């Protein structure tokens, strides 16, 4: 056991210093017990001495964490002894600094009076401060005697939600404006003569109770397709938003009726460009053909879709899938109203506009011998197939496709559709799809005319509902007199359109199919002299309008996937015009002029001449010989691709052209977005 002494001093420090000097030990070697803290009196009067008891430690019990200074030691001991010492200590140790100051500690406001000044506090947002029961709104003086109460303002913004059902009752949305709670606490502030009270804000989202949402759904009768996970996720969202919380089952669409070709019928396919830009020529088919008695195809009935269910649990019937109407064109018979059977041999043709299919077989004339002066020119309504050659000065003309197995020498070949020439074309003139141009013009007229006629029909229907108008007379006189009046007033365009159509059809009858000519005839009969028109009622007008419509629709659908083309092997000193594509799949083109409304593809070479493809030109090789001139051109929106080109090749896109000065490879020319000609190439 070590030695123990008790000592006194004016304060604890002095008492401890005395004890240590008596013992001759450093602070680390002793244990200290404070018996009296001592009190300061005013000018030494009424002061009490401090008393400490100091004991020398056993050498073993010395710890490293022992306090190093007397002040530290004392404060450690004091903290152990009292609960509210922190303030006391401050008061003790910094007593002089605190007077006239105010501070905030652990949610309370403290102050110390001073003789010469008053502490000031300034309230702020989020907290209400009462001085002696009165709310203070601006900077205020306080003193120790004041009762200061602090009221922290907490805010709660409750979440708002709403359930919306889509019009088709297939979707339910939960729309949320999120909630928020703000909790505030006072910020500790160091003593100052003036302090502005500050607060900490803790913001936390306020969530929606998902059971409330479920109750509401039940109340609204929503029972099908409820997504509970989505509801929970939506309720737990801390941001505003709209959440899909229930989804009904849509009825499936079903499949429209369609025309199924029989396997052995090949309908013309267009060539396809591969991703790398090259062309797969094997896909390119010959003209299809059928013999009489052969089934071309069959109308497939529509397939019903499956019923759906809305969120209320009500059944939704599937939409009726439209069935395909079939109309027998020329050269075919309808069996059972479904199967189309050919009664001639020729080219099958399927025209589909909307849900109407017209199937025809275009008759085919097959010529086994050369076309010469002895056999005469060929002119045929349908398609023509020539198994031999077309000789000097002859002309072959057909409304349908033309196929020539032999050579064509100094001849003219004109087709309303497409031409295939499997050998050489020399010093000849080819035109394909010339029927299409006039049909395009006519279909524009018909589009306007059928619109006029439908409006006229509507006007007549309206008139027959007026009580002062005697409808019965129409049964006696027919529609003629009434239409005459209408054509003189509201529908002045109708007779003009009729005349224009009739006139154009008569001019071009050689290039047009019978439907176009028939319509022109009936329009002429019914409209040119309305007094003798045989039209009896509105239905007759509808009939004519429908005929006009099916014709112009057939042109529109034809333009999409049945464009005319010319396919040839070798062309020399010739002029080739196609309203669609031109494909030269053999050796190539010598000193010829090619013009296509769509694409030109030349698998071989081009030596001399003019090549124009409105949409694109793709050539394997462009060669140059002294004295020959090659120009490759496309429209503004087109592009040119040439694998190998010699110097002096002219490339033109829209109005801009460029001449290649050197040989080049993999040329790709087009206009960029600014309309500037860009030619990429390897030299």
């Amino acid at each position, binding site marked *: 056991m070590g030695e123990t002494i008790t000592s006194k001093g004016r304060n604890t420090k002095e008492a401890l210093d005395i004890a240590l000097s008596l013992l001759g030990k450093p602070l680390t070697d002793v244990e200290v017990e404070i018996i009296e803290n001592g009190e300061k009196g005013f000018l030494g009067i009424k002061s009490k001495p401090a008393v400490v008891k100091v004991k020398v430690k056993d050498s073993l019990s010395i710890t490293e964490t022992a306090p190093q200074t007397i002040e530290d030691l004392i404060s450690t001991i004091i903290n152990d002894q009292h609960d509210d010492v922190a303030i006391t200590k401050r008061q003790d140790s910094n007593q002089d600094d605190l007077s006239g100051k105010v501070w905030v500690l652990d949610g309370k406001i403290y102050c110390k009076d001073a003789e010469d000044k008053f502490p000031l506090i300034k309230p702020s947002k989020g907290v209400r401060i009462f001085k002696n029961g009165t709310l203070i709104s601006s900077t205020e003086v306080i003193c120790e005697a004041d009762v200061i109460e602090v009221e922290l303002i907490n805010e709660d913004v409750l979440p708002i939600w709403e359930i919306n059902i889509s019009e088709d009752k297939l979707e339910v949305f939960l729309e949320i404006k999120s909630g928020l709670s703000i909790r505030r606490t006072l910020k500790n502030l160091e003593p100052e003569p003036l302090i502005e009270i500050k607060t900490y804000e803790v913001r936390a989202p306020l969530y929606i109770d998902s059971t409330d949402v479920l109750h509401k759904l039940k109340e609204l009768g929503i029972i099908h397709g409820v997504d509970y996970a989505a509801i929970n996720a939506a309720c737990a969202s801390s941001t505003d938003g709209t959440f899909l919380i229930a989804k009904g089952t849509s009825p499936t669409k079903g499949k429209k009726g369609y025309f199924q070709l029989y396997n052995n019928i090949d309908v013309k396919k267009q060539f396809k460009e591969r991703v790398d830009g090259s062309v797969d020529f094997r896909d390119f088919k010959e003209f299809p053909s059928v013999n009489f008695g052969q089934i071309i195809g069959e109308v497939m009935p529509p397939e019903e879709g499956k019923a759906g269910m809305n969120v209320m649990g009500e059944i939704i019937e599937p939409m009726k899938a439209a069935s395909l109407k079939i109309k027998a064109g020329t050269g075919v018979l309808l069996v059972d109203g479904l199967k189309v059977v050919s009664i001639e041999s020729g080219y099958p043709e399927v025209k589909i506009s909307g849900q109407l299919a017209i199937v025809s077989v275009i008759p085919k004339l097959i010529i086994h011998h050369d076309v010469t002066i002895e056999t005469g020119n060929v002119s045929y309504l349908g398609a023509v197939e020539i198994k031999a050659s077309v000789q000097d000065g002859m002309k072959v003309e057909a409304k349908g496709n033309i196929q020539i197995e032999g050579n064509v020498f100094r001849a003219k070949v004109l087709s309303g559709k497409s031409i295939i020439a499997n050998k050489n074309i020399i010093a000849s003139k080819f035109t394909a799809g010339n029927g299409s141009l006039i049909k395009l013009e006519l279909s524009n007229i018909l589009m306007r005319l059928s619109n006029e006629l439908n409006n006229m029909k509507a*006007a007549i229907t*309206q*008139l027959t509902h*007026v*009580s*002062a*108008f*005697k*409808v*019965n*007379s*129409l049964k*006696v*006189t027919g529609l003629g*007199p*009434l239409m*005459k*009046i*209408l054509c*003189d*007033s*509201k529908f002045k365009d109708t007779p003009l359109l009729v005349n224009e159509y009739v006139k154009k059809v008569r001019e071009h009858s050689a290039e047009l199919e019978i439907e176009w000519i028939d319509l022109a005839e009936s329009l002429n009969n019914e409209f040119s002299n309305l007094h003798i028109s045989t039209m009896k009622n509105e239905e007759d007008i509808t009939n004519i309008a429908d005929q006009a419509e099916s014709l112009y629709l057939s042109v529109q659908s034809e333009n999409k996937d049945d464009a005319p083309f010319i396919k040839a092997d070798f062309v020399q000193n010739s002029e080739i015009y196609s309203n669609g594509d031109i494909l030269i799949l053999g050796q190539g083109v010598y000193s010829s002029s090619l013009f296509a409304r769509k694409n030109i593809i030349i698998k071989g070479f081009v030596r001399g001449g003019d090549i124009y493809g409105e949409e694109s030109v793709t050539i394997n090789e462009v060669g140059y010989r002294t004295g020959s001139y090659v120009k490759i051109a496309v429209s503004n929106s087109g592009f040119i691709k040439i694998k190998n080109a010699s110097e002096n090749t002219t490339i033109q896109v829209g109005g801009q052209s460029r001449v290649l000065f050197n040989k080049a490879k993999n040329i790709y020319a087009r206009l960029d977005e600014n309309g500037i000609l860009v030619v990429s190439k390897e030299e």
Partner: protein
Amino acid sequence: MFNFTLQNEAGNLVINLQGDLDIEATEIIEEELMVEIQNSTGEVELNFQNIDFVDSSGIGLLISLTTSLKETNRRPTITNISEDVKMVFTLLQLDEILGRDVVLL
């Protein structure tokens, strides 16, 4: 049945039409009324007060009648058209065919 009466007012001719202006009126208009008009002078007013029904042939007759009156400078007018008949006139845009000075809609 269609018929008409004539009335002379300050040197001008007022024709009071009566009945249905329809296909059956053709004969009366073309054979009787036209003769009466040719035998008279001055401006012509067609009073429609008692016309309740029309049909397309009747309107056709009216158009040719007014056209010939205009050609002979008789300054035809059509007056007192009933609301229902006016509707027919409007739908057919007769004011455009006959002239806005002839028929006031």
